[in-house]
């Protein structure tokens, strides 16, 4: 662990614990993460008994060197972006813990868990109402978006 910055040190620890005790439905691409600790790809499965059962998604995590004081940049990538009222078709996610409500006690695992539970509580698969407009106008980095968190039900 010598020579790692504090953020990499912490990411290394998170990676180890995910390797030892992987949470259900979440699989980290360990090879990629070990090459560059600041860029992870995570494969996740829609939870059983939900609208997303059987679907597979890819999440991309990008960490700054201020992690964990600064939240990771989390987006869905790949060819299957879940259809969900808080997920835009470009993969951006409207989730408060990814910006305003971020806390350094959160982790990759807890973010994944939040996203799985956000998917699981969905009752109707649809894009956000402003999807077309947002996708055209947004910054590439979802953290630059001034999100307005208004709906806690899903």
């Amino acid at each position, binding site marked *: 662990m010598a020579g790692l910055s504090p953020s990499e*040190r*912490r990411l290394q620890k998170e990676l180890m614990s995910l390797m030892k005790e992987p949470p259900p439905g979440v699989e980290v691409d360990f090879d990629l993460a070990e090459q560059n600790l600041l860029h992870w790809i995570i494969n996740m499965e829609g939870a059983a008994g939900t609208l997303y059962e059987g679907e597979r998604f890819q999440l991309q995590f990008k960490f700054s060197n201020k992690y964990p*004081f600064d939240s990771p940049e989390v987006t869905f990538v790949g060819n299957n972006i879940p259809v969900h009222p808080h997920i835009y078709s470009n993969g951006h996610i409207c989730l408060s813990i990814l910006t305003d409500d971020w*806390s*350094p006690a959160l982790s990759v695992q807890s973010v994944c868990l939040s996203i799985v539970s956000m998917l699981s509580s969905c009752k109707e698969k649809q894009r956000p109402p*402003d999807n077309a407009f947002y996708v055209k106008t947004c910054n590439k980095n979802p953290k630059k978006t001034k999100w307005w968190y208004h709906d806690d039900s899903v």
Partner: protein
Amino acid sequence: MSSNTTENAKHSAEHPDGDGAGATDEDKKDDRMFECNICLDTARDAVVSMCGHLFCWPCLHQWLETRPNRQVCPVCKAAISKEKVIPLYGRGSTKQEDPREKVPPRPAGQRTEPEPGSTFPGFGFGGDNGFHMSFGIGAFPFGFFTSTFNFGDARPSPAPRGTQQHMEEQFLSKLFLWLAVLFIAWLILA
């Protein structure tokens, strides 16, 4: 988390050390109890918040600096402040602080006599989710003058016709126009 459902059998199989419990595992658990909630290392220069959560002082200090106007406990989001954390002095922790740490020294322990509690709740409402909404009544009329009577300058372009946002903007614009009319009428009549 990796527990015992059949779906996880595959994962569990990858690390056979899971069952070989013993003294070492217990030791590890003991260590984890004293991990800083931020860097996940064993807490050094440990402090504990009033809500009971353990941190390294450098870690917690950095977090408090990150959001100086909204200082909350990273774990439970209770209000937290530099003055209200308690340093932990274990028996083996008498060594001097690492001088490379460019953070203020860990706050000293303090005793306060019990007193009838009347803590000021603060101004925040909804402060927890970081979304503050305030409608300033004070500048109310002037807002109208500046927004209604500023002809010909650049404002954010309106939403395209036919979209929901366009309709909402139209509605809001009418609503505020009527509010302004009513307000001026009230000024004149009163």
